[in-house]
């Protein structure tokens, strides 16, 4: 925490964090700076970036956010409500100005819609648009109507004036459950209905709240999206396969697999690949940051359920739960080592003979060398005294 102690040096540039009651959602200034540093580290940035994040998060003009919900289950919002460092209310009340969210806004009906229209007008080109849920496109989008108009239309309108667009959850990112066969509503992901716009995808069912919070703070701090992969997912969160950082990976490499739920291997916490874990083909940071702030190992695989690939189109809600994953890193060997492999070989007569031979040879050579030394020992002794005396001159 070196830089926290140095804040006197930079206090001219950081705003008065202790200035008013509750400024930081009940956090002390120290805790708040720690939090911002934590976000920076989650993003894979230098911890000094935490300071810039702190400045962005305490800017007097909080950036407005419009949150639209399409065909969704509110799971993404529920997931966000369970973030504790900081809590979602710290984000929406102190860091951003959440001007419209169907589940969270205090107003309702025409009042809420009017405020949304006002905010969009006032902040045209500056607000962040967040969408959860997939967009029905069949029959003119009539399968999801909000305030009397199809959500398809609402999303397109809001996207026009958005500074940045975030698709949260699998439905918004790649279609999710609504887009699975037979897809009666013609559900499409957000980026499919907004051609030409950069949409940051945060898939997951539910998505990890900290990936969302980190992405928003990155946007606030740097005014641009974080590094994205080809599917427009932030690389800091979706750059690696679940398989790569899975705590059960050593079992995979050693060929120890659970073969059915509740069997010996399953109870031992062995690898779930053979009961359909999609970790080897799914990109997400679940094993690294877990869920629910309940400590390490608190994520599906950690509690004994195979990953079902929610962040990947064509895997989550599409591939059967028990189907084997297509291992993207390298294929497992055709023959795994057996659990009861031989535990080493005993001593063989030949090896014993060689070992004894070496020992005997050493002892014999030593004895032979000693035998001839008797006379020279005396000589050496004499010489030693003569040389050491000459050495003193």
């Amino acid at each position, binding site marked *: 925490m070196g830089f926290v102690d140095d804040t006197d040096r930079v206090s001219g540039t950081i705003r008065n964090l202790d200035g008013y009651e509750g400024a930081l959602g009940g956090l002390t200034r120290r805790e708040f700076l720690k939090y911002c540093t934590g976000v920076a580290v989650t993003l894979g940035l230098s911890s000094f970036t935490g300071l810039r994040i702190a400045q962005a998060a305490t800017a007097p003009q909080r950036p407005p956010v419009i949150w639209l919900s399409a065909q969704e289950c509110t799971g993404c919002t529920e997931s966000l409500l369970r973030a504790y460092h900081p809590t979602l209310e710290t984000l929406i009340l102190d860091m951003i100005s959440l001007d419209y969210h169907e589940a969270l806004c205090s107003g309702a009906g025409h009042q809420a819609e009017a405020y949304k229209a006002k905010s969009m007008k006032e902040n045209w080109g500056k607000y962040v648009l967040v969408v959860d849920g997939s967009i029905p496109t069949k029959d003119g989008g009539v399968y999801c109507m909000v305030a009397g108009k199809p959500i398809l239309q609402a999303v397109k309108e809001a996207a026009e004036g958005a500074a940045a667009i975030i698709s949260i959850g699998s439905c918004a990112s790649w279609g999710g459950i609504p887009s699975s066969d037979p897809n009666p509503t013609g559900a499409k992901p957000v980026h499919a209905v907004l051609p030409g716009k950069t949409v940051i995808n945060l898939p997951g069912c539910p998505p990890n709240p900290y990936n969302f919070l980190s992405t928003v703070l990155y946007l606030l701090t740097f005014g641009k999206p974080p590094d994205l992969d080809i599917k427009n997912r932030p690389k800091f969160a979706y750059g690696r396969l679940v398989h790569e950082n899975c705590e059960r990976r050593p079992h995979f490499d050693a060929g120890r697999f659970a073969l059915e739920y509740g069997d010996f291997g399953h109870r031992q916490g062995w690898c779930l690949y053979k009961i359909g874990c999609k970790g080897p083909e799914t990109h997400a940071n679940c094993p690294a940051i877990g869920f629910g702030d309940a400590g390490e190992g608190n994520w599906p695989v950690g509690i004994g359920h195979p990953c079902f690939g929610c962040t990947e189109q064509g895997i989550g809600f599409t591939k059967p739960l028990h189907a084997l994953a297509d291992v993207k890193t390298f294929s497992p060997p055709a023959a795994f080592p057996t659990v009861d492999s031989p*535990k*080493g070989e005993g001593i063989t007569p030949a090896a014993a003979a060689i*070992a004894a031979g070496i020992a005997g040879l050493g002892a014999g050579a030593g004895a032979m060398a000693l035998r001839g*030394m008797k006379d020279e020992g005396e*000589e050496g*002794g004499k010489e030693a005294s003569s040389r050491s005396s000459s050495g003193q001159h």
Partner: protein
Amino acid sequence: MSETAPRPLGGPIVTKPFAILGVFLLIGGYFILRRFLFGMADVSNMSNGYPIGTWVVLDVVIGTAFGCGGFAMALLVYIFNRNVYHPLMRPALLGGVFGYTLAGLAVMIDLGRYWNAFNLLMPWYAQINSVIFEVALCVMAYITVLWIEFWPAFLERMPVAIKQRFNLHKLQVFLRRYMYVFIGLGVLLPTMHQSSLGSVLLIMGSKLSPLWYTQWLPLLYLISALTMGYGVVMLESTLVQRSFKLPSEAALLAKLSRVAAGLLVLFLAVRFGDLLARGQLGRAFAGDRYSVLFLIETALFAAPVLILASRRRCANMRLRFLATISLLAAGSLYRMNGYLLAIDPGNGWTYFPSAPELMITVGVVCLEIMLYLIFVKTLPVLPGSIAEASGRPS
């Protein structure tokens, strides 16, 4: 610097002992070939429970300690400025050159995927928190430094025509001027990796018997490497002087043996002080396999101290030789215990080297001795011989 400048011994290279060593080298070579053609399991008994076998323990961990002669002598001669020992420097260096180079060779035999070894040198793959990585880089660097330190011996023997052809006198001047840098590195690098060989064992945790497992392992490995370095210089000097009838260096060796004895006392003090502090000394008398190994090892460490305690006994060649043997055996057993005999990986794993595995180690050691013989006969390594008058080519 020294009264008798080093010079080549001359004489025929292929002698009877040389031929016998050659036979063992051929046998070892045959099994090395099999290892590269048919894989590790064909020749070795190493397993997932015992991934470290004879090759690493004998050829690398003990082999490099035997190669510490150059390091130990450089410390004494150049750092503590005891120039009287300078005649022992070049042979010690040569021992180090082969001890380390062949340890590197043994590692290449031992590495399952040796073709990936070059990645060690790629900075973007560096895992700077790994002890093994440190050992690997440090040993590679030290092998290079040893050859540079030894290079003047080649230059002295090189025909003038070749030197002029390749402008080598410039190299000679450069080496003479900047040798202190390499000598400095030659002391620094072994300090790093010899202690790291002890640090490697720190991750063994409860697999290693508490009689050996301590946070002081790095220090103990460093001290014992130094004692073995002096031991190997004394052994080599005694044997070579007797075999080739060279001027006796008994006076120097007597002095040197007292340095080694002092270090042994330090080693035993740390070893037993630590056991007492951790309250594990009782295990030494538990009567199990570990306590027997510990007692033998301690006896081998203590014997040279007792022998070399008196100045008169130090001057006795025979006793000094016995003490040297005991000292080297002690250091070797200490290493073998730490890496193999006092390790229990659990789950019923057992290990005893297979015959081909042992023969590869024997072959590597034979190669080391053969190269040593070739080098001392053709290059200026050892001090001038008594038999100089009897028609040796100069």
